[in-house]
């Protein structure tokens, strides 16, 4: 059926938009994830920074 693919794409777009709408509607649902991100971002990024800085030296030793 030629229209089947078209309807599937339209339906997918509607679901994606609905998901985005729900994401903005229920922010409290994502609050723990955001908080976790806030807690972890600094130590992880600092470790990542030092990792790339020190990796060549570790490579040299090994």
């Amino acid at each position, binding site marked *: 059926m030629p229209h089947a693919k078209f309807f599937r794409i339209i339906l997918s777009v509607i679901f994606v938009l609905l998901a985005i709408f729900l994401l903005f509607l229920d922010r409290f649902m994502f609050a723990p994830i955001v908080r976790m991100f806030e807690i972890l971002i*600094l130590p992880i990024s*600092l470790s*990542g920074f030092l990792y*790339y*800085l020190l*990796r*060549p030296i*570790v490579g040299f*030793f090994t």
Partner: protein
Amino acid sequence: MKRWLAVTLLYLVFAGLIALFIWLVWPTLRDQTNNFINSAPEVVEDLSDQVQDKTEDGGVVSSVLPKSIDLETRMSEYAQKAAAWASTYLTNIISVISRAVVLIGVVPVILFFMLKDGRKLEDSLLYLVPRKYKAEGRAALSEIDEALGSFIVSRVVLNIILGALMYVGFLFIGLPYALLLVLISVVLNFIPYIGAIISAIPILVVAFMESPMMALWSLLIILAAQQIQDHILTPIIFGKTMAIHPVTIIVLLLLGGDLAGVLGMLLIIPAYIVVKILLTHIYKLFFQEKVEEIVE
């Protein structure tokens, strides 16, 4: 040598370097910081006098500055605002200290395992990628790894050279608090373009407090160091790899600053590098052929 042994050895070397820093550099840095904090009111007063003199003598400065400038009142207003801001943040000092302690305790542990098991992280990320696309996923991760590594190492090397150039220049002209100001400048210079401007402000204020001539010399030293960095060192160290258009960088910095302040400005460029590489690979894998078909 085993990898864990190499990392442990590196930690020992690092501890030695920190001890050396505390022994050699820290006393000077601490004294300069204490002196700077203690003399802050005098700095404001001196600066006010300097500007007042320059406004009254009818020179170039007087034509730039408004006649009715009341710098002392303005400065005290800013100082009050700064004090209010500081007190708001410092009331939560226990939380700040505990976070710093957690950071100092946690970062070496995470770093140890990252350095020891670096490749395992790549493998565990590849578990999430379907088998069909594993080769492409590995290529993307390697590219990200290489780009981030070269970006971070290059920036650190550039900033250290810039800091050394500025420090030598400031020592030569006898700028007070040179070490402290250069350290602040090196950290802020991790933010492209904007960092250089922000870091120049305290240097020029302190220099202007000494004399306008000192401020001029400081400005010349900053400009010379920046030019050496931009036109000689950057092409040698960075090459043409990961060249990001200046407009893109400015847009990214605005976004990063708005999202997460200074931390956002520091992290936005590496994040952009990661996202750009990932999107390029996804486009090549899923969309390139289809787009070319449509165009043809």
